[in-house]
Each structure stands twice: as structure tokens, then as C-alpha cells.
């Protein structure tokens, strides 16, 4: 079993942001040139377009220990690639429902539209998610899974236990 993790008050959450290069990345740049301040927890991954962001990346990010994930792109109608964000919107509308159903707390997964002019919004979104996730504590679900062996005790059928013992 995994070691008992204590949620200490100095918990620094890991937040991963998947952003499109034309709007949100540029918006984050603007926050920088405007010298706005926000928590340093976020790590930004740049994509050409939100349409490029595969749901598997979000899953992968959680598996890699992210406590919060942000997906952000151009506002509807502003997509540099005509409609990439529209496709992404549908894809993630469905995917978040799936994650919710398997028990991921959707508080940890944030979607936003941040344009190249919205440096302030970028700061707001990142700060809010970081603080929300900080308050929630570490995302243990996937971390625990990674530490678990097969037949981790959840199987209590006697036949299987027998079989397992015999191996």
C-alpha cells in the first residue's frame, strides 16, 4: 500500500495548462508584459489550437501527478483555424462528463476562453484554479492507482483469492 500522505498546509499544487498559441498563450504573454502576478504553480503547454488537444493528454497529466488541469483557447468565433475551438468544445463537453462519471472531481478540471487581449482573465483563471486545488489538497486518485498492484485487495471473491494464493 502507499504511504499515508499528510496534507500539509504548505501543499503546492501542480497545475498544468494546455493552451492554444494564438489566444491564451498570447494572453498569458500579455499578463507577463503587463507584469501581473499570479501563483507560480502553473506549467503551460503550448498547442497550435485547442482542436489539437487530445483528451488523453488530460488523463496523462492527472496520471503524471497534476492536481489541476486547465484547458484554454480562443473565444468562439475567434479561432485562428476557423473552427478548432468549436470541435474542442464538443470533445471536452463529452470528456468531462466521462471523467465525472468515473469519479474525477471536475473542480480540478477547468476550461476557459482567454483571448490574446485578456491578460487579466488569464491571471484570474489561473489564480482561481490554483487556489481551488490548493484548498482541495493533492489529487490522490491517480497517484494511488499508480502505486497499486493487481488484485490490490478490492477483489474479495474467495475463488479468486484461492487461485491467487496458489500462484
Amino acid at each position, binding site marked *: 500500500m502507499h504511504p499515508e500522505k499528510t496534507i500539509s498546509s504548505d501543499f503546492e499544487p501542480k497545475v498544468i495548462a494546455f493552451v492554444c498559441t494564438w489566444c491564451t498563450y498570447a494572453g498569458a504573454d500579455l499578463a507577463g508584459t503587463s507584469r501581473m502576478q499570479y501563483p507560480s504553480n502553473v506549467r503551460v503547454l503550448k498547442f497550435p489550437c485547442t482542436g489539437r488537444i487530445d483528451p*488523453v493528454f488530460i488523463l496523462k497529466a492527472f496520471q503524471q501527478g497534476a492536481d489541476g488541469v486547465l484547458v484554454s483557447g480562443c473565444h468562439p468565433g475567434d479561432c485562428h483555424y476557423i473552427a478548432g475551438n468549436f470541435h474542442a*468544445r464538443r470533445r471536452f463537453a463529452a470528456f468531462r462528463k466521462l471523467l465525472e462519471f*468515473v469519479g474525477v472531481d471536475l473542480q480540478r478540471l477547468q476550461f476557459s476562453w482567454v483571448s490574446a487581449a485578456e491578460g487579466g482573465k488569464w491571471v484570474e483563471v489561473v489564480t482561481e484554479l490554483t487556489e481551488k486545488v490548493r484548498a482541495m489538497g493533492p489529487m490522490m486518485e491517480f497517484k494511488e492507482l*499508480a502505486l497499486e498492484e493487481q488484485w490490490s485487495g478490492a477483489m474479495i471473491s474467495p475463488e479468486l483469492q484461492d487461485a491467487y494464493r496458489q500462484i
Partner: protein
Amino acid sequence: MINTIDISHYGTVAESIRIEAARILGEGLVTAVVAYTAGRRAGSVQPAIITSAAEAERLTFTAASVNNLAVYLTKAKKDIPRSGRIGIVVKGCDLKALVGLMGESQLQREQLYLIGIPCAGVLASTVRPAEPLTAGNLAPKCRECDAQLPEGCDYVPEIDLPLPTPLESTYAAEIARLEGLTPAERWAYWKEQFAKCIKCYACRQVCPFCFCEQCLCDRNKPQMVDTTPRPAGNTAWHIVRAMHLAGRCAGCAECERVCPMDIPLNLLNRKMAKELKELFDYEAGFAVNEKGPLTMFMEKDDQSFIK
């Protein structure tokens, strides 16, 4: 359960299949027919591909005809254009899969000769194939069937289908129960379910929509999903699978039936179908759509979840 389901017409259906299969093979209309043949035990069946009219007498249809035969066309689809038109026996649920496959350019309608089954339901399990069909042993998918009489087939035996007794959907009830739990409780539920997975990939093998030449989950450059049968990889595999089937799966529930570890796989698929219906008013399997719900968009799509 005493609630017996009337399947007295299956005998006539079987006979009609035999006659029709013999006819279309005999007339050279098709080169092969994918159908069910009688198994060794009474009532049991096994899928078969016959290529001559003489073989048609082996064909049958019983409450144990659970298999979705559509899967035999995707796995063998490369040969279809060369071998000519193929006949296939389809229940309404199987037809939905075929319809989906046509929408994804995997099959063409004119390559197929569809023999539709007026279906009153099949067994949940084929362990006791001769057992009378009741509300108790009926396959869960049949409880909510909306395609008892497949539409648009080339041939459907003319039978007055007995009116079905409405049964409550067990999937809907289970989905509702899970939705009522907290995320942590749901996680615990699925953790237990996915922990059972032995990564035998029977679900993938039996699924008509898992027609990729190389599955994303088998790739190692990069390794998107851990392939070992450990909880982390199992969970990722089932999430990715459910996502890939979203908007495509029409609910034949074969994955769930073949799962040796009894993981309620169709529950995930039904949940996604429900969400796509609510989000985009889309239901899979009713029409050959140019685009599925996740390969199209509307400007007015819901974005209430986006900041």
C-alpha cells in the same frame, strides 16, 4: 421471475432465414452469408459464414443468438470489395452498429444484403441457451430496446411481433444511482471494477467499432496508455475506450457480455450515449450520418462549463 417473453416466432424466423439465405446464395446475389448456426447444445448457436446455398439449412435463430455479427464485417472488411456482396443476419441492435460503420466509411450499404430479425430479445448469458426467455434472464440491453424491428433491411421475415412488455432500463437505473454518489464514491466503485480487468482485450476484439489497425493503447512511441494489467493502465484503457466509442457505440453490449471479469462496460457507453443525447441531441445508429457528434459542431453548442 415468471414474466416470460414470447419468442415463439423465432422458429419461423429461423426458417425464413434459411430460405432467404439459400435463395440469395443460390441466385448469386451474395457470395457469403454471416449468420448463426446451431451449436451442439440445444438452443445454443455460433456465428458462421456460409458460402453455398446447401449450407443454409444449418442456419438458425434462437434466444441465444446474442452475438453482434457486424464485427465479422469490420475485421474482414478488406476482403469485402473483392469478394462481392455479403449477406448478414442482423438484430436491430446489430443494425445500429452497421449503420455507424457505414457512416465511418467502413462499409457500404450496397455491399451488404441485410436480413433483419424481428427480435423480441435475447438471453443475457448463453450458459443455459435453452432456458425460456424471461424478464429475469433477458439481456439488459433488450430491456430498453427501441429497434425490435430493424428498418431499412433488404429482407425481414413477415411476423406480427408480439407487443413487448415495457421493462425498466437497468442501465438507466444504475447510471442514476452512480450519478447520485459523490465523486469519491464513484471513483471507489470504478476502481474496484477496473481493478478486475486482466487486459485480455476481449472487449476490443468483439467491438465492431474497434476497427483500428493499430490501437492507440498499443502504441509505445509515445506510450499513451500503460499496457500492463495494473490498475493505473486499466483505468486509462477503459476511459480512453469509452471516449473513443462516445457518439459511435449504439449499445450492442457485446463488450460487457464477453468480459470474463464482469466489468459493467456498457454502463460507461450508455452514460456517454445519454450525455451526447442531452448535449447534442444525438443518438447513434439511427441514420447513416455524414458526421458523428464529435466530428461536427454547432455554433450554439453548450459552453456553460467554460469560463
